[in-house]
């Protein structure tokens, strides 16, 4: 009902872009924040929501573009600057000091002191109690933060932001750890803030929540703003359409080739967890030449750990692997690569690339011995291989001598794939190969996977994207809690069955004994 009157714009972003090395996180975004209203921001993972908010809160500085606060151009060099101008933020990842009390956390960097610069903890606790009262959470201000549940910690984070008396309050997924009752309380607090004229920017994945409390909605896709509307004019379908885009994802079609003989088999792979239990729990699977085996599972299901075991990255893992029927006795990564295994790791920046080396050096890093005569790297042979890979994978790079960090995420991923392919693998392990890359590059990666499988490579790929696993796999394995909980032929796999299998062993599942 408040949306009936147009609210004043308090903050405006004009043509803001943010570039990290390798990725353009936000592209020429224009975003308006309105006073006394809940401004909702939605988008898929990696669409750039958090980056945009960090720019407003002064945590990140825009590469290009300007920020107008009440019509006046501002630039924040730190979050302190933004706080001084009345902008507060509840971060998605908790920014609390576990070793300090709730009150000390709420007043961190703004401690209340007496005349002798001694912290007045009595006054701090009294004021903190007022804010906590409003949140009805039953949190005492003198409790240590590390003793609180995650949901309660999130409420402390919210209390801290509210206590700033901000004119603009950004909430990045504030409800992700809250119970239904706590969410209700939060909504009451938001309504109260709204009535006092505070502009609220609200980010969430839960669409029903957004539709309930939002006044304005902005949708981000791949760093671009694709829709900006009043909430009362839109429905769920509109939001989803703006988020995903009208064009369906471009999965390369299967070509109907028949997989050959078994090329890889893992038997009884186990990996103990540091904290006790097994991260990979007696997993066995087999893969045929020319087959794509998708491994579906939620975060922490043990997919990456399984790949690590297969590559020989954990000395204490047990189990045996076979390549083309022969047992692999080598236990270290170097010699397993020589036997025909190659891994494309999930985290490109940390594990895939040496970002300060050139594109060419990265491509040939794993296969240098192929270009060596005696002990001399033959520049001609190396260049030839690099040129060939750049062409085959359609890597967009002006000059392979360029640093790899100057490429876009998708092209970086292609470099990682090219590096693995140059080792001449028989079995390719791909961990979330489409993570954090744009639509075009995704299509290229999927096409490459198809082509490789046609050439007779066995491909194991792990993903948490249902569409992807359904569209690309010849067979689908499901992992949950370190165990293999399902194995489906593509013909018989349904999304519901995959999801059910991926939830096995998580929390108290009542009917586990009835399942295979």
């Amino acid at each position: 009902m408040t949306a009936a009157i147009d609210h004043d714009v308090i903050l405006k972003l004009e043509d803001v872009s943010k570039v990290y090395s390798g990725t353009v996180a936000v592209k020429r975004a224009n975003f308006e924040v309105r006073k006394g209203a809940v401004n909702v921001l939605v988008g898929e993972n990696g669409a750039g929501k958090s980056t945009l908010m960090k720019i407003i809160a002064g945590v990140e500085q825009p590469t290009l573009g300007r920020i107008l606060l009440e019509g006046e151009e501002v630039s924040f060099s730190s979050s302190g600057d933004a706080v001084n101008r009345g902008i507060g933020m509840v971060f998605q990842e908790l920014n609390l000091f576990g070793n300090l009390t709730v009150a000390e956390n709420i007043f961190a960097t703004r401690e209340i002191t007496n005349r002798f610069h001694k912290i007045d903890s009595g006054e701090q606790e009294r004021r903190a109690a007022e804010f906590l009262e409003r949140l009805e959470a039953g949190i005492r201000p003198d409790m240590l933060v590390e003793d609180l549940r995650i949901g309660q910690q999130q409420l402390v984070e919210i209390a801290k932001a509210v206590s700033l008396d901000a004119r603009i309050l950004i909430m990045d997924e504030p409800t992700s750890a809250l119970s239904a009752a706590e969410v209700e309380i939060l909504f009451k607090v938001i309504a109260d803030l709204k009535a006092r004229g505070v502009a609220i920017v609200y980010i969430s994945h839960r669409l029903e929540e957004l539709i309930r409390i939002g006044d304005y909605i902005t949708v981000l896709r791949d760093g671009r703003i694709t829709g900006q509307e009043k909430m009362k004019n839109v429905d769920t379908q509109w939001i989803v359409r703006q988020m995903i885009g009208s064009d369906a994802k471009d999965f390369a079609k299967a070509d109907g080739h028949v997989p050959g003989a078994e090329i890889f088999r893992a038997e009884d792979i186990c990996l103990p967890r540091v904290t006790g239990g097994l991260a990979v729990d007696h997993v066995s699977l087999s893969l045929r030449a020319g087959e794509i085996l998708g491994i579906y599972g939620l975060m922490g299901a043990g997919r990456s750990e399984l790949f690590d075991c297969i590559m020989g990255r954990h000395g204490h893992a047990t189990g045996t692997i076979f390549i083309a029927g022969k047992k692999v006795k080598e236990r270290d990564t170097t010699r397993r690569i020589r036997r025909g295994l190659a891994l494309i790791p999930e985290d490109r920046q940390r594990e895939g690339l040496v970002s300060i080396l050139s594109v060419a050096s990265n491509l040939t890093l794993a296969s240098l011995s192929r270009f060596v005569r005696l002990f001399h790297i033959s520049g001609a042979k190396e260049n030839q291989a690099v040129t060939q890979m750049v062409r085959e994978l359609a890597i967009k790079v002006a000059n392979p001598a360029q640093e790899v960090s100057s490429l876009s995420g998708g092209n970086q991923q292609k470099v990682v794939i090219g590096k693995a392919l140059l080792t001449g693998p028989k079995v390719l392990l791909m961990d979330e190969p489409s993570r954090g890359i744009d639509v075009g590059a995704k299509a290229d990666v999927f096409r490459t996977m198809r082509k490789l499988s046609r050439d007779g490579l066995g491909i194991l790929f792990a993903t948490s994207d249902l569409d992807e696993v359904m569209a690309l796999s010849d067979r689908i394995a499901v992992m949950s809690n370190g165990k293999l909980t399902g194995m489906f032929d593509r013909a018989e796999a349904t999304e519901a069955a995959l999801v059910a299998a991926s939830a096995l062993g998580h929390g108290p599942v009542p009917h586990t004994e009835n399942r295979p």
Partner: protein
Amino acid sequence: MTDIPAKAAVASASSGSVLLTLMKARTFIALIAVLVFFSIAAPNFLSAANLILMSKHVALNAFLAMGMTFVIITGGIDLSVGSIVGLCGMVAGYLVLNGIDLQVGYTIYFNVFEIALITLAVGILIGAVNGLLITRLNVAPFIATLGVLYVARGLALLSSDGRTFPNLVGKPDLGTTGFGFLGAGRLFGLPVSIWILVVVALGAAYLAKYTPLGRHIFAVGGNERAARISGVRVNMVKMFVYMFSGFCAAIVGLIISSELMASHPATGESFELNAIAAAVLGGTSMSGGRGTIGGTIVGAFVIGILSDGLVMMGVSSFWQMVIKGLVIIVAVVVDQAQRRLQSRVTLMQMAKAG
């Protein structure tokens, strides 16, 4: 200049690239600057005798700095090189004077060539100890090499009870003469130590650029995890760089004892700091992954010429220290500025393209 606002930076992107080129060539510019300055300010600076003498001084630091460069490129540090210089000098001196007593009435004396080989082996062995501590026992490089610094220095002092091994001429009947050749000998008009430097430097530069091992050294320093997953034998690479550093230190130990014809157990104290300074001045990044042998050699020359030139000008040694420190700090500040300017230019281009 890193604080210029975004829009101004776009406009200055092209002028930025000129600045960038200048910054990249900074060590070379510094070298030319000190050469020009001292040839004007210090009489006799450009005489052949003085240049050769200076080169001999510079060579000592340059050896250590080359070994240090590889270590730093892998993301480590080697504080023990100064002590290895001292210990290796003592080993050489001991072998020339005393040989090895077999405890059964015989004493083996080695000829000078064998002594040199044994001394180099000792240097490599201590480097291997560093490497094993770091790769097998997971000791941080700073701590491991600091420990070895003390142990090696202590052993050097113990070997002679703190005394100097004097007068290393050797005896003709034992075949131990000729030890002075390394330090005082000349080939084609240049000191032997300079020729050795040229050979080792060319070898190291070749290794860095044209061999898989060299490529792997950079990969380990740039991203150790990625290197490991790519099949690089990270532990072997690290072992190599510390052993090479020990090897370089042993060469320096031999040359110094040979120049003085005596071995003193305190030789080489704080040499590690000069080596680090030369490497950093030459553009080696302390966070790993970046650096060149050529740059390090130029860096060693800048530091060496600076200190010799200041001595010739009669500047007090206290001021010399202040000046050397300032030069190192400026070098690193410029290095950081270059890095930021470079990434800003690339990001701008991407933002405009995207």
